């Protein structure tokens, strides 16, 4: 099975303190970037499928040279190919723009299965659905298990509200957005990344993919970001001042009252 995983490089939320600068943008100078976490689960899932039924895993990202590092990390995990889709014309694309670019890439090669993370940590969970629609492929979101039935079908489960699961069958080729927790991604250390450091990563431009520059980029974006802001701290925190036993009872009571315990 040929599997494509669309990945993205994002500021690592666990290792950064997000601060805004005077111009209203995120202060990016000291940010640490890493692979978008749900994308990492998607790549792990793709690798597990490929090792079970055979095939190749390709990771692709739309971005610039800096974004190569996440491709290398995923290649160190075991992805067979990495592809950078990069062009000046792509700068400032909105979700639909990115989906348009990826669509062109998917159509260039033949993939049986396209995976995305459930959402980018700095994004809006839109690419997967839009990409499926543009490709006219079936789509399932929030997927938390995949079983290959035969060459043409997958059995998937999706997480629905309240922690319940919904089982579906879906025809290939399709697009799935992968939920974290579907698997336990393998560890990638510096050594692994160094070992793939010299593997060439092909770059595709708008022209190579036959993308009309007027459909992507800032000019074509219909959604424009106007501001970032850090919400001010609201009221509502309740601090318990009792003995440990009293506090435990109170916490249990509060959690139960909010429906957290059944």
């Amino acid at each position: 099975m040929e599997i494509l995983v669309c990945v993205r490089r994002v500021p690592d939320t666990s290792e950064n303190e997000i601060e805004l600068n005077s111009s209203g943008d995120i202060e990016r100078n000291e940010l640490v970037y890493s692979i978008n976490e749900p994308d990492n689960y998607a790549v792990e899932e793709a690798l597990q499928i490929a090792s079970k039924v055979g095939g190749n895993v390709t990771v692709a990202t739309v971005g610039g040279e800096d974004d190569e590092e996440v491709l290398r990390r995923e290649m160190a995990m075991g992805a067979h190919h990495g592809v950078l889709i990069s062009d000046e014309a792509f700068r400032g694309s909105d979700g639909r723009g990115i989906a348009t670019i990826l669509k062109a890439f998917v159509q260039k090669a033949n993939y049986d299965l396209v995976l995305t993370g459930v959402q980018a940590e700095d994004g809006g969970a839109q690419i997967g659905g839009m990409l499926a629609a543009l490709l006219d492929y079936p789509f399932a979101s929030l997927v938390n298990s995949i079983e290959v039935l035969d060459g043409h079908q997958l059995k998937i489960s999706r997480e629905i509200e309240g922690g319940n699961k919904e089982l579906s069958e879906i025809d290939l080729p399709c697009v799935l957005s992968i939920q974290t927790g579907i698997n336990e991604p393998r560890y990638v250390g510096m050594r692994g990344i160094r070992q793939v450091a010299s593997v060439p990563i092909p770059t595709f431009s708008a022209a190579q993919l036959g993308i009309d520059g007027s459909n992507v980029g800032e000019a074509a974006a219909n959604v424009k970001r106007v501001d970032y802001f850090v919400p001010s701290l609201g009221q509502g925190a309740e601090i318990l001042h009792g003995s440990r036993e009293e506090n435990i009872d109170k916490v249990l009571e509060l959690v139960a009252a909010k429906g957290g315990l059944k």
Partner: protein
Amino acid sequence: MQDLQAVAQLTSWLATGRTLFLLIHLLGVALFSYIVARRLVPLIRGERDFRFDRPWFRLGRVLKYWLGQWKQPRYRAAGTLHIFIFAGFLVLAIRAFSVLIVGVSRNFVMPGLSGSAGQIYGMVTDYAASIVFLCMVIAIVRRVVFKPARYAVPERYRKRQSADAIFLLGLIALLMLADSLFAAVAATVQTPQGPPVEAVAVLSLPWIMRNVLVAVPLPVLGRLYFGAYLVHELTFYFLLCYRPFGIQFHVETSLFNIYFAKLDREILKPVRYGISDQQLDQVKSFGVKTFEDFTWKHMLDFYSCADCGRCSDNCPANAVGRPLSPRFITTKARDYSFEHYPVFGRVKNGKALLGTIYSADEIWSCTTCGACEQECPLLVEYIDKIVDLRRGLVDEGNVPQSLQKPLKALEARGNPYGKMEKKRADWASSRKLETCGIKTLDHRDGAETLYFVDSITSYDERMQAIGRATANILDHIGEKFGILGAAERDSGHEVRRFGEETLFLALRDHNAEAIKASGVQRIVTADPHAYNALKHDYQDVPPVEHLSEVIARAVERGKIKFNPVENEKDVYTYHDPCYLGRHNQIYDAPREVLDAIPGLTRVEMSRSRDRSFCCGGGGLMLFYEPKEEQRMGVKRVQMAAEAGANVIVTACPFCMVNMEDAIKVAGMEGKMTAIDLAELVDRQIARKCPESRAEQASEIKECVTASSHSLN
């Protein structure tokens, strides 16, 4: 028949004694040689391991640990028993050989043992055989009746190792009986004819037997003589050839195992012997994944283990029900080796060890505290094997999710918490500091001493107090010191011990360069893990000392005077951190410091010094979520309570985390407290004018702002 025929001349319906015994000798020796040769096959296929240096030093260790049985008395009863058996075996070794030769050569006398020397030797061996026999009886009774807990085998291994042990003990007892009977018969026959050729020692086994045998007619004695000899022969060779199939192989291998034992235990095994750090990128596979990835010496360890259970008896992971028991790390590998490298039959292709004999949880459960290695009478190594197995897991990407985050943060930010580098020195700008700000060093500062803080003390709010106490103490004794600030990265101590060698090397190289750039002449740290890393894992950095050594020296030189403790009813106990005590033998300095504080009552826990009980492990171990029934720390604070203490003093920030957590978990809040040695010393130091503290407070703020612009 006046005389007893020599066994060599005895005839039976089959052959003369000489032919029969020659045949047994040849068969026995040939079989043993073959078995040993087959046992050497995996060792030849194993990884290389350089153990051929410093022969005199190694011989010295053989004298101490092998001949001197140095570690045996740590277990009083079993150890004493073993020393007797070992001594008996040594004494009987020569006799065994001469008895064997007597079977084929009637008048053989071992060179040097003719005449009265032989008489004396004969008496000694009579006693030796009797003592060994007695020891066997006691050992069997211990196994059968008293069943010491440490010999028990958990259900999951479904193997009764005790049965094998008892069988072997029984065989040795039989050998001793046969040997004694042989001597007794000879003595009985010779007694009436003038001076005895073979005297027997009073009250020994042969002596008792001879007293019984005097009434037995000569023809029966003749048959007994032959029978005893035959039983002795067969038992001897059976034991010789059976030992390489089980725990008694250590009789043969222990000498070699101790000779080749690791000399510099504190230095971790490199990924590959003979491959430099720079060449590591070319190594295809890291660590131990299959049996053949172990070094030959590690395989020899597996053969040499006597399954005495002392390692596991002292292992904190085993004590709290984690799925790790060092003893089984060894015996499972030995069984694997016997199965895949059989004496008869073909060598089988090995599968990955993980999932067949070891589980990932088992391998991650070790805190590398070193209690097992401290105890092992045969100097079997464990930490290197665990680290090598972890290297294999890391190389395969098989790392628990709980450890992946901190490892990634260490790569990105140089600390496991993912905190910003620039905030690393924030702890140093606090009003609680006695000192007037702490310098962030660069080569222009001319500071002599670097205080290496390490991640936990830099970022953990509770442990920052240890950092400030350390700075106060260094300042008080007039040390010109500074810190690396944002240029410091995690020492990487646990990164390396968790098998992430590449990341460790990156952290080490970064720190080593920053230290060199600072131009300091020495390093002080309050963190034993950082201390151990800087001392043994780093090369070409200035000498490093643990704060407790610095304080002890300052106390001795009178640079530090203490106020008496406020509450004289408090009872203190000192908990030895593994990486200060067992791994670096710093036991006395912290105790001397405590004893220098007037009015301080100190007691020892039953497990202290080199038998200290790990509190739960440091560094990445704080992030790992082990499967366990209880926390190690809880056990430790209970030990402190049993000793009658209500204050636990330690000298390691990780111990502090574990102790304080454990006090809460054990519900001992208010009854037990934990304090770091640095904090205690800072609290007790008699400062000349205590009032100046308040005055200084206003100054501090200025200094801190002045020094807070980091140089990096």
